[in-house]
């Protein structure tokens, strides 16, 4: 059995070792040339792929909960979904959550994930009080904010060691429901204005229509919201729909994408409307469809996610959206979001500005298109999100991550570069 990533591309053969205990792991590290830890396989590209893979989801005990302060300690293979299942009904939620709850705690730290509240709460590492990690030597270290190991590991793509457990602080909630406001905009200018107008609301994200042309470029549905205060903590994960097989590749052409985008956009009322929605609907809309990655067919897909500094965002986004629209290569999903301040971690993705994420089916000509998009990203001082990436060049990567040399040096110094590698780390030479 071989493991693949969420994008189902590339498909390579690999040898899997199941993480069960620290003693077994130490032996594995000693006896294995190089490997990469793998959580729940939700990163899109090749950041968790290599010939040898350490499967960590089997390492999933809850270790401690401090009810007074909402501090939870878990082994790294626990998924965010499991945390919600246990704690929402007791009035606790994750301080930071990405758009899927089907990722492991270890993966959340390694990707230093972010969510709809990045502009108010920052990345996942903000809620990490402490974690333990096994290094290349087999030694287990515990580290906290301020330690170099902490800042290299949060966002470090599993390249500094194997995260074993983490202590995270949860957020108190008084409802499992969110009061949501949806704002429908007509173009990019309106979209930016809407983000600014609503930036004090903790959660926000926009779905953008990538196939819009000319003056309609950048039209979107901006959804903002915050937890209700009604004391209703009823939460049960919904039964999932499932895509049972890979769709044939013709299922997703620009026409069907257009139809989907149009339907989604048309469904929303003009101007501003209000809804009350559950946690799963608000935070994890796509988790409701198991294996939604299969709609792109067996050739796989990738997600292109970049971020541009705020001052350059408008020009840059316009340029990129025009290129995408002209290419006719559709995106099922395009997510736009305004981010808050950058943190100190060496390789964390977010910086203050706008990020856009789009899915593309893997097909001839795609990587050429993405290379031209890269040029625009580099020109405007932006960066590419490693967790989504499967093809970025070393040069593009380096131009976006000014601390990458520090990261490389840290890896070399602790001999991490000899043990922990992914296809991606070898491509961009970190």
């Amino acid at each position, binding site marked *: *059995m071989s493991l693949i990533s969420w994008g189902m591309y590339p498909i390579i053969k690999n040898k899997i070792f*199941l993480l069960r205990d620290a003693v077994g792991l130490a032996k594995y590290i000693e006896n294995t040339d190089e490997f990469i830890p793998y959580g729940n396989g939700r990163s899109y590209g090749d950041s968790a792929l290599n010939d040898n893979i350490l499967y960590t989801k089997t390492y999933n*005990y*809850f*270790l*401690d*909960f401090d009810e007074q302060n909402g501090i939870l300690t878990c082994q790294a293979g626990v998924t965010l979904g*499991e945390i919600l*299942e*246990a704690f929402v009904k007791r009035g606790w939620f994750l301080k930071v959550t990405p758009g899927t709850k089907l990722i492991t705690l270890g993966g959340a730290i390694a990707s230093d994930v972010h969510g709809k509240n990045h502009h108010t709460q920052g990345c996942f590492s903000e809620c990490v009080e402490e974690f333990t990690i096994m290094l290349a030597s087999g030694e287990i270290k515990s580290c906290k904010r301020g330690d170099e190991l902490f800042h290299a590991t949060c966002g470090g793509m599993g390249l500094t060691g194997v995260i074993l457990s983490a202590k995270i602080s949860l957020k108190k909630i008084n409802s499992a429901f969110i009061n949501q406001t949806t704002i429908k905009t007509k173009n990019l200018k309106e979209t930016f204005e809407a983000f600014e107008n609503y930036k004090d609301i903790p959660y926000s994200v926009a779905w953008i229509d990538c196939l819009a042309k000319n003056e309609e470029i950048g039209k979107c549905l901006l959804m903002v919201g915050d937890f209700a205060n009604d004391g209703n903590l009823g939460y049960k994960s919904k039964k999932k729909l499932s895509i049972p097989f890979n769709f044939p590749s013709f299922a997703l052409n620009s026409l069907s994408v257009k139809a989907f985008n149009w339907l989604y956009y048309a469904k929303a009322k003009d101007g501003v409307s209000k809804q009350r929605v559950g946690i799963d609907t608000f935070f994890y809309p796509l988790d409701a469809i198991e294996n939604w990655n299969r709609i792109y067919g067996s050739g796989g897909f990738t997600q292109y996610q970049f971020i541009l500094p705020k001052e350059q965002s408008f020009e840059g986004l316009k340029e990129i959206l025009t290129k995408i629209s002209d290419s006719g290569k559709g995106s099922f999903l395009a997510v736009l979001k305004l981010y808050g301040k950058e943190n100190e971690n060496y390789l964390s993705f977010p910086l203050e500005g706008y990020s856009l994420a789009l899915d593309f089916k893997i097909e001839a000509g795609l990587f050429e298109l993405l290379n031209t998009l890269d040029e625009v990203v580099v020109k405007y001082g932006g960066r590419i999100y490693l967790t989504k990436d499967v093809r970025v060049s070393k040069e593009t990567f380096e131009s976006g991550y000014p601390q990458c040399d520090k990261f490389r040096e840290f890896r070399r110094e602790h001999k991490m570069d000899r043990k922990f590698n992914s296809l991606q780390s070898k491509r961009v030479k970190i």
Partner: protein
Amino acid sequence: MSYVLIIGAKSDIAKEVARVYAKNGYNLYLAARDSSSLEDLKHDIEIRSGVDVELKEFDITSYDTHEEFYRSLKKRPIGVIVVSGYMAEQTAAQKEWIETLNTINVNYTGALSILNIVANDFEKERLGFIVGVSSVAGDRGRKANYIYGSAKAGFSAYLSGLRNRLYESGVSVLTVKPGFVNTKMTENLELPQKLTAQPQEVAEDIFNAQQKGRNVLYTKSIWMLIMLIIKHIPEFMFKKMSI
């Protein structure tokens, strides 16, 4: 809330079954050999679900201790789930009698020993449910693992008869036939991904089937179809095949 007794609680499937029942509000007795090694699981479940978890020392092949063990439970369980299993490597079991005997004793004799006691009690009370985790390997003997398979076949037949007997008393009996599952037991086997379930899926399936009072559960469900075909291959052909 009522207690569920899980026999053979150290297996990967049992661990997930325990979590699912706890999540749905059941307290647990987790029975296994060297049960203190389950402290981490007990703690895990208590944090996740806030239910009561008791660890119970239990050896499925020490038949004469079973009566005493069952009587010692402080509260009668509402349900008993037997997950114990031992899969000897087929060629080893062919050569060494002790491997064969152990396979029979864990998968069949021991399971019957404890379930006879439970069944008598549940029948008397006219209340409770029994779940036995058997295997698709019991549906037809194949050269690749017929020793394990024959013990599971015996267990499946037992559960079928037990279901028939307890029907009158309103006690439900569920036979679970997992296909390939990603567990410690199969860690070194090369399993086809599409036919292989995760222990979490199996546990959810067991819980749902038991709550609905179903009789036989194949998990993943595709295995029902696969075994239907395998069972219907004529013997004169089957004996020549390698599947």
